[in-house]
Structure formats: C-alpha cells, structure tokens
C-alpha cells in the first residue's frame, strides 16, 4: 500500500493537470469558433471563382497557361499541412502517416516536400526527406497574406518545372468531432467542364486574359482554404483531446481518492490496534 503522502501528492498533481487541460479546452473552443467563421467567410469568394473558371475553361486552350499544363508525372511535390503545437490527439500523426505512406510509395527520392507547421518540418527533417520550404510560426496570427506567400512559393516551384504535380495532404474540417485527412491535387488544375452553364456574357479584356489572372488567384484562395480547414481541425481535435483528458483525470482523481481513504483507514486501524494492545499489555 502506497503511503498517504505519496497519494496526496499525486492527487494534487492530477488536479493541477486537470486545470490546464480544462483551460486548453476552452481556448481551443474559442479559437475553433473563430476559425469556423473565417471558413464561412471565405466560402462565397472561392465558390464564385470556381464557378467562373468552370464557365470559362471549356472555351480556353489548356496550353494557354503553364499552370494548366498536364505533363508526364516524373516528380511530385507534397504539401503537408500540420500544426506547430501538439496535444491535439491524432491530428498531426494521421496527416504525417498518410503523407509518408504516399511518399514512400512513390519513392522518397522522387518526392519534394513542402512543410507547413513545425510538426511536419520536424518529422520530415529528421527522416532525411527533401524539404524545399518550411513555413512555421504563423498559425497564431494566420491571415490571407500567409496563404499568398506559401502559394507563391509552391506555384513558382511548379512553374520552374521542378515537379510535374503538386498534392496537398491536410485535415478537412467535417465537424467538431471528426476531421478527415485528405490528399488533393493542387496543380495542374483539374476541372469538370460543365457546358450547360455557359451563358451569353461579356468578357473583358478577353477570356484568355481573365483565365490568366483568375487561375493564380484561385490557387491563393485554395491555399487559404487548406490553411483554414487545417486550423479549424487542429482546434477541434485539441478541444476533443483536452475534453477526454479532463474526463480521464476526473476518473483518476476518483480512484486516487478511494485509494487514499483506504490507506487512511488502514493507518487508523493499525494505530488503534497498537493503542489497544499497548493498553492491554500495561494491565498485565
């Protein structure tokens, strides 16, 4: 039986850990709400852009823009979106597992990696993968400019012909309780051409010019979407993880308290026995 002081100390430390997990849960919940708002605000912009592109692409030659070029795939770049901080359940590990499986299937030497978030950087750095760019320490004040900056780096890497395809692995926000790890192809752009939606419209300066400036903007907003989805997922995952941790610590405190009381009673019993037997001995 552990002694009373040990158990008391453990209860105390579990309680203080519980305070931390509770606080982290609250913070994650607040951040998640904000991230969700951001996602909702970004949606109309990206859906309008996508619609315009879909209207236009049937009329435009794919050779017009290098970003639309479908080349024979020899080398692939993976953009892996993780967080900077841990303590978010399986949020990071599931992205890393999926991306590494896919990369290893293609062969480590045929793949370049763009790391978003410290977790991805540390993971791929220590395993000796070819990292082109790492973006860390921006999640806490995430804004659209980060998406532009990250997007530009990736796009120019594709344009320079270093890779023939770019894929993004990220967590999609489904709801608070579940996130889905997805792999999406970012470049070259793929669209289902929907012939029915083409209406009589004026395009200025010209369809080609519109497409030329639309596509890079579309990529920026796509990148922004990935960042927002991932950020919201991270907060949701952390919230659930911390919720579980709080419940677990509750159970632990219960068990420890029980153990503590048992030990306390045992001590009292022993002491009483000693006193009684001492008194008996004195009587002689």
């Amino acid at each position, binding site marked *: 039986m552990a002694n009373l002081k040990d158990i008391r100390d453990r209860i105390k430390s579990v309680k203080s850990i519980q305070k931390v997990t509770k606080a982290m849960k609250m913070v994650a919940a607040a951040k998640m709400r904000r991230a969700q708002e951001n996602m909702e605000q970004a949606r109309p912009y990206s859906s309008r852009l996508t619609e315009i592109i879909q209207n236009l692409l049937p009329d435009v030659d794919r050779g017009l823009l290098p970003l639309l070029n479908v080349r024979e795939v020899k080398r692939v770049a993976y953009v892996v979106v993780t967080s900077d901080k841990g303590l978010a359940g399986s949020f990071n590990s599931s992205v890393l597992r999926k991306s590494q499986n896919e990369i290893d299937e293609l062969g480590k030497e045929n793949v370049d990696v763009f790391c978003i978030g410290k977790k991805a950087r540390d993971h791929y750095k220590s395993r000796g993968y070819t990292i082109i760019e790492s973006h860390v320490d921006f999640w806490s004040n995430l804004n659209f400019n980060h998406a532009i900056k990250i997007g530009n780096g990736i796009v*120019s890497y594709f344009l320079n012909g270093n890779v023939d395809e770019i894929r993004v692995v990220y967590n999609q926000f489904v709801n608070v309780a579940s996130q889905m790890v997805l792999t999406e192809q970012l470049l070259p752009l793929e669209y289902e051409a929907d012939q029915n939606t083409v209406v009589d419209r004026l*395009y*200025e300066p010209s369809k080609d010019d519109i497409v030329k400036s639309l596509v890079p903007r579309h990529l920026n907003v796509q990148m922004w979407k990935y960042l927002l989805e991932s950020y919201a997922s991270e907060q949701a995952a952390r919230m659930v993880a911390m919720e579980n941790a709080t419940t677990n610590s509750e159970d632990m405190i219960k068990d420890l308290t029980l153990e503590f009381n048992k030990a306390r009673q045992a001590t009292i019993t022993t002491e009483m026995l000693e006193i009684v037997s001492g008194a008996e001995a004195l009587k002689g």
Partner: protein
Amino acid sequence: MSAFTLEIVTPTQILEAEEVSYVRCPGTDGSFGIMASHREAVIGLDVGEIKITQGGKDSFYATSGGFAEITKEKVQLLVETVEKADEIDSGRAEASLTRAKGRVSGTDGSDSKRAETALFRAVNRLRVSKR
C-alpha cells in the same frame, strides 16, 4: 434613377451595399463604370480605386485587383483585398510605400516584378486614403 445591389466579396469578408446607383472600377483596360441593368459580364480588375455612389453619396475603396461579375440580379466584385478610404492607416501605408520603393531599387529579375506590384499597391492605398 434605378439602383442595384453590390457585393464586394473577398476571401476574408463580404461587404454588401443595397440601392447603389453607380460603381466605378479600375478595369485592366482602364477605369469603367457600372449602372443598373448593365449587360452580363466578367471584367478583370486591376490595382486601383473603387468608387461607389449610394443615395447621392460617394465612398471610396482601395483594392488590389480581382474581377467584377455582373449578372441580372446583382453586381459582385471578387477582389483579394478591399479597404475603405477612411479606414486606411496612412502612416502604415506610407511605411509600406517606403519599403516597396527600397525593394524595387534593390532587386532584379522576377523579384523586381513582385516588388513593382507591391509598389503599385502601396501608392494606390496612399492615394485612396487621401480621399
């Protein structure tokens, strides 16, 4: 004068304006105006100033470019950034102008093009902020 609904849609916010009678936008081929019952169109926008006339009053916005999508129901400006003239911090705008100037003279190649667009944006914001 008949009016229409204008929406300025960016990745981070949506500004809505009812009963707008006139919008002037910085098109890639030069500035152009939209009034009610304009024909349907998609028009590219450049860095510049948007002027909105609403109930006889004008308001000015700085934008870094995008598209105007005109449909029968409404006019949507899909732009990457938009800032109302009186909300632009002219001190900050001035600082970014100096920074952009320094970058333009200090770089070459593909970077210089990026620096130049940054300079355009900075000049534009400063100009609009003085409205």
